[in-house]
Structures are given as C-alpha cells and as structure tokens.
C-alpha cells in the first residue's frame, strides 16, 4: 500500500497537478481576514504601504476597532479629527497567510486621516469579478462617425482617465468591431449609477472660458487640474449649501489672453464698505458650450497674467457636491473626446444583486458537483475511481481559476459559464477514460496503460474540436463573450495537458495489480 501511495505521488503528472493546485490556491488567495485593506497612502509615510490590513485606529479621545467598510473608516476619520496624532494598527503579510501586526503613529496637521490614507473592503479572493458578480454599470457607446486607430486610442485613454479621476477603479474600456468594421466602445465599471456614467462619458469635455464675447482660454490651455490637494481643492459648508472649489492651471498664452481681455474692464464695488471689488464682467466657463460656472473676477487681477482659475459649485447635499466636483475634475483633466459618443446600451447592477448572484452560483456549482458525483458513484460503485475523479475535477477547476487570477482575467458570467462548460467536457473525458480502462476487465498496469492510451485519442480529438470551435470567439471583437472563450480554453488546456493524463495515471496505479 505504502509503495502504491509513493508511486502515485511520484508520478510526474500527479506531482505536477499537486504543485499547480497549491500554486493556484496561492494565486487565488482565499481571504478570511477581517478589517480594511489600505489602497492609498500619502507619500510622506514611507513605512505604510497599500495592501496592508488596517485593524484599529486609536485617537486621543476615540478608538475604532470593528472596521468593516469604508463608511466605518470615514466615520472614524471624522471622529478622530484634525491636528492630532493617531496610532493605526495594521497587519502586513510577510509570507502567504503569515501576518505580522505593527502600529504606526500618524500626525494629522491640517489633515484628516482620510486625506492621508484610503481604504477598501478586503477582497475575498484575488479573482477579478465582472459587474454581474460585483455590481456596476456596463455600457456600449457608439461614436458619431468612423474613427482611425489614433482616435480610438485617444477615446479609450480619455474615458479611462475620466473614470479613474472620478474615483472608479478597475475601469475596463475596450472596443468591439462588428462584421462591417464599425466600432463601438464597451465600458464596464465596478460602481456607479447610469446617471453618473452618462454625465461622465457623454460629454466631449471641451472647456471654453469667455469674458463677455472674448474667448480667454480653452481646454488646450489647461496645463493642470488640482485633484485631491487640500491647498487647492476644498468642500466647505457656507451655512446654506456645500460649496466646492478647485483650481485649474492655465498656459502662458491663456494667461496673456486673460490680461488682454481684462485690461479695459471697469471695477465695481458692490458692498457698502467697498471691502471687495470686482471687474464688471464675469469669467464664464463652458463645457461643450454649456455654461457650468460664472466666476467674478477680483479687481486686483485687472490686466494681469493669471495662470490659474478656481472653479466653484455647490449643492445642499455634501455627497452630491463632492460628486459634481469630481465629475468636473474628471472631464477637465482628461483630453476631450474627438467625437461625441452616444450611449446605445447600458445596464446597471447593484452590488447587493451581485452578491446574491455570486451566492446563487456557488450553491449551483456545489449542488451540480454533488449531484454528478452521486450519479457517478451509482454508475461505477468503486471508491478508488470516485476518489480519482473527484481529485482531478476539483484540481482542474482550482487550477483554471488560479490561472485566471494570475493573468488578472475578469470573471464575468460568460467566463463562469465557460468553466461550467469545460468542467462538463472534463467529466465526459474522464468517463471515456474510465470506460476504456474498465472495458474487457484489464487488470495489469501495462494493460490499463494501453487502454488509457486508446481513450486519449478521443480526448485529443475532442480537445482539438473544441479549440477549433472556440478560436473564432477568442479572436473575435466581441469582448463581452471573450471571457467564455478564454476560460474554456484555459480549462481545456489544463485538462488535456495536466489533469487528464494525471487521471489516467491515477487509474493505472489505483486499479492495476502489477
């Protein structure tokens, strides 16, 4: 018996399967940790790095321990306040699943803790989930005319930048070319609502600043936009509404045009004590010819080359005010789109629904595996065959998921459907191998080896056929179905190169008598 077990583990295919299984589990990295993962750290704090797990924040008068979501963190950050020192306790992973707890005092000078670090919920695995599983918005955008390659890349970059600046991470912008060569952009973002996305991506983002009828500067003159720096970006409550303001920086030419446009304007002092005086025209900011802001120009700027402007806005709700500011920053900091994009299809899925779908899929998957194995147990009535089947099927799924995690493939419904399909093909192949081995009641290892070899012919033809059927889909421009092709291909490759041979070897060693 010992000898047989030793032979099984020393078989190159079984050994390779085990190694890949372990590696895949590390790549997938199932996580059961509690706390919040640090996603951003201000450069001033070199000891703290993104990826560490925040466990506790200890302020002078307030301590937060059970941090489970971002709201908890923001609440805690508000509670510990400004101009104080907090101690944060965090865990860092020194080896897979081996954590070391450390603490670090952070001095908050004119800053909140949330200005220094940002956090997110800990991901349960390293797998990237599509919007059906994690929630989000998916849209198909049609440009108003045909585009060349440079324009396609410009639009892709611009949209990605806009959405990133707006605060959406893991933005996936790709394009689909249909059979007539027409292009449609395909955008998938893991959070946001239809309204927010429409506001962000429908706009071309062409800024024009005018004083009276004179154009002072345009989007081409913007050399920078203040984002996230509390010195040039503020959200304050003025007693009535939440006001936001942020600076944009203008080129030398734009500044010269400003000086030229303001040199002949009159100064007006609307307040009784003449504490504040302004010029008699406003600086009107238009985005895509839509007025977004009219700024009063301070009298002391008359005829001066001004290289920055402050964009202001407001809303009674703080969150809406912040979102409006982010939208403007996102649009102004990205290059304007060379053409208008029309949203032709859009779909919104809430994170709660995504969670429900994930749970439903897990239940489905477990029940399917259990049901198939009860059936196979009834058919073969041999625990050795069942053990080999279960080991190989389980390994195949984990290795496929591990590879998907390694190449950072987004697991959407189509990808999962591909895995289910490939698992089905895998079980079929294992049935073929088992049937060949059991055919004619071959008993010696060499006889079984011969039968396994015969079964491989069907397995290899089946594999080649599936690849032939899938290749057009994998290389097709239909990005939303590519996941199906890619995961099926990964699973088929894992199956034919590693797990099917391992299954054959397991049967040889488990059932063979000599």
């Amino acid at each position, binding site marked *: 018996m010992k000898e047989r077990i030793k032979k099984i583990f020393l078989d190159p295919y079984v050994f390779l399967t085990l190694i890949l299984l372990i590696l895949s589990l590390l790549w997938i990295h199932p996580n059961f940790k509690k706390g919040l993962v640090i996603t951003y750290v201000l450069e001033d704090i070199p000891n703290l790095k993104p990826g560490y797990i925040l466990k506790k924040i200890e302020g002078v008068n307030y301590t937060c321990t059970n941090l489970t979501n971002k709201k908890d963190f923001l609440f805690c950050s508000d509670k510990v306040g400004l101009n104080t020192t907090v101690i944060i306790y965090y865990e860092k992973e020194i080896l897979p699943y081996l954590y070391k707890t450390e603490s670090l005092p952070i001095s908050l000078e004119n800053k909140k803790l949330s200005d220094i670090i940002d956090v997110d919920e800990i991901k349960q695995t390293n797998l990237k989930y599509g919007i*059906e599983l994690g929630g989000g918005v998916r849209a*198909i955008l*049609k440009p108003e005319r045909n585009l060349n390659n440079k324009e396609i890349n410009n639009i892709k970059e611009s949209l990605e930048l806009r959405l990133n600046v707006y605060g959406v991470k893991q933005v996936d912008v790709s394009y689909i070319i*249909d*059979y007539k060569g027409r292009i*449609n952009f395909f955008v998938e973002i893991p959070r946001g609502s*239809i309204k927010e996305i429409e506001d962000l991506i429908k706009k071309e983002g062409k800024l024009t600043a005018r004083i009276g009828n004179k154009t002072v500067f345009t989007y081409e003159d913007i050399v920078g936009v203040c984002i996230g720096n509390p010195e040039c970006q503020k959200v304050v409550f003025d007693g009535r509404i939440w006001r936001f303001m942020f600076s944009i920086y203008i080129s030398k030419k734009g500044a010269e045009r400003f000086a030229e446009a303001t040199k002949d304007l009159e100064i007006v002092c609307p307040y009784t004590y003449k504490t504040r005086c302004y010029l008699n025209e406003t600086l009107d900011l238009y985005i895509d010819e839509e007025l977004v802001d009219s700024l009063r120009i301070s009298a002391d700027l008359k005829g001066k080359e001004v290289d920055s402007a402050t964009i202001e806005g407001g809303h009674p709700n703080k969150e809406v005010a912040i979102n409006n500011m982010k939208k403007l920053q996102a649009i102004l900091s990205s290059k304007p789109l060379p053409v208008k994009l029309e*949203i*032709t*299809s*859009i*779909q*919104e*899925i*809430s*994170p*709660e*629904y995504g969670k*429900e*779908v994930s749970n*439903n*899929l897990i239940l*489905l998957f477990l*029940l*399917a595996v259990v*049901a198939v194995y009860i*059936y*196979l147990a009834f058919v073969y009535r041999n625990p050795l065959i069942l053990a080999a089947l279960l080991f190989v099927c389980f390994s195949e799924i984990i290795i496929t998921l591990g590879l998907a995690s390694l190449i950072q493939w987004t697991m959407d*419904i*189509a990808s999962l*459907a591909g895995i*289910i*399909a490939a698992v*089905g093909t895998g*079980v079929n192949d294992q*049935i*073929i191998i088992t*049937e060949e081995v059991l*055919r004619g009641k071959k008993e010696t290892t060499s006889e079984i080896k011969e039968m396994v070899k*015969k079964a491989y*012919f*069907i397995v290899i*033809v*089946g594999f*080649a*056929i*599936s*690849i*032939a*059927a*899938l*290749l*057009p*889909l994998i290389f*097709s*421009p*239909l990005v939303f*179905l590519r996941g*199906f092709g890619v995961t*099926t291909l990964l699973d088929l490759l894992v199956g034919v190169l590693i797990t099917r041979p391992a299954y054959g070897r397991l049967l040889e060693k488990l059932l063979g008598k000599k």
Partner: protein
Amino acid sequence: MKISSKFSKIFEFLFIKHYKKIIVIPILILLFNTFPMVYNFYHTGKPFDLGIDITGGLKITIKSTNIDENVLRDICKVNCEIKKIVSLGKLSGYELYYPENINIDEIKNYLIQKGVKEESIIIGKFSGKVGMSLFKTLVIILIIGFILVTVVVYYYFRSILPAISITFSTFMDMVNILGTLTLLNIPISLITVTALLMLIGYSEDSDTLLATYLYKRQGRLNERLKKAFQIEIKEDIAAAIVFTLMIIISKIDLIRTLALTLLLGIIYDVIDTWMFTGPIQRIIMEKRK
C-alpha cells in the same frame, strides 16, 4: 442486472435490427422543429423571435416579490411584457420588457415609491442597431467555427465521411434547438448563439466517440456500437443533471438560457447521432465492403 438487460434489448431492437428504419425518426423530428420557424417566417418575416439584446429596448428586472402585480400592469400597459422570474419553483421577481426606449427614471421612481428597494431594480437599455450587428458577427463566428471543426475532424479521421456527417449532425442539433425554442416562445438572444457554439464542442464529442468506435476499434461491430452508446448515455446523463440544476436553481437569465439550450442540445444530439449519423455511416461502410 435488470436495467442492463433491458438496455441491451432496446439497443439491439433500435440500433442493430432496425437501424435503417430509425433514420426516419430524426428526419421527422427535424421537420417538426422546422415547422414553427417556417410558420413564424410566414407571419413575421423572421424564422424566430430575437431577444431584447438583439432587437433593442428596455429591460427592467425587479429582484423582489414585494410589489403588487397590478402596479406592474399599471406601468406596463402598451407594448410591454411582464415575465415572472422563478427560481427553485418560487417566484423571485419580475422582468418588464419595453420594445422602445422610455423614461427610465420615471419608472424607477414609481417603483421605489411603491416600496421596491432601489438596489432590487436592475435596468438594461439595449440598442437594436448594435445588438443586430453583434448578432450577425456572432453568426459569422459560428460559421467559421463550423468550418474549422470540419477541417479538424477530417484531419483526424482522414476521411470526408465522418467529417461531413459529424458536421451535419451538429447542424441538425442546432436547427432542432432553434425550432424548439421558437415553439416554446423563447426568443433567441446573443447567449443562445454562444450556447450553440458551445454545443459544437459537446455534439462533436459524441460524434467523435461514435466515429472512433466505428472506424478505429477492433471487435464485433454491434459490441463496439453498444459500448459507444453506453458511454454516450453515461456522459449525457451527467451533463443533463448539471444543466437541469442550472435551469432550476439559477436566478440568472443568462445561465438559464444557456443551460436550456444545452439541455435541448444533448437530447437532440443523442437522437441525431445515433438515429441518423450512426446508421448512415454504417450503411455506407457496408456498401463499401
């Protein structure tokens, strides 16, 4: 023992004694399934109904049962369709289909007012133009897939006969599926076409099995065929268990459509492979001898 002897009797009766006569069964089934498509084409100009993701329109999914169906009928009067979502035999929500784009916010707000939580409402807006162009692209991919598969089968068997019969059997499976879906009033969506692509793999697996046992194995032909049929049935039952569970348990429309298409596929595949392709290949083999 009893099951296996009954199985042997049925197998011998159908596939050994009357293998020439049974060819008529898949042909009749094919004709039966073609009829709804011809009927549909005569009345609507299209062989089958296309899904909202191809024709365009608005789909509102309500993942809640906490709403009066009369309220849904209020907002779904003209050119609108209500479908119930059933999972594990229990009602789990509703789907509203509008063929034209309407004011999404108005409907969403109305539903929220009536007590539906915002996170339970999923909105999908689809463009007909884009959907149709994607559908056509997918059909082209399917055709290319078919051609490549025929080439691969030809390469392995070095004979045109299995290559053509395997491809034709898969084509018959597809026509049968489309006919049944039309009969059941289920529209063809982009995922149905993907499932058909997946079916090529499944269907070709069983055809390859048959062809291998016909052309590449030694022993009595009847025994070889019986063995191949046994394997095929074992495989198909395992797959049918998975697909049936997917239909019953899944709450996701896409997964249910995929599973239904594949379940129909494996049922038709057994019929087309064993009652059509198999007998025809045998007849030709005997004539060659």
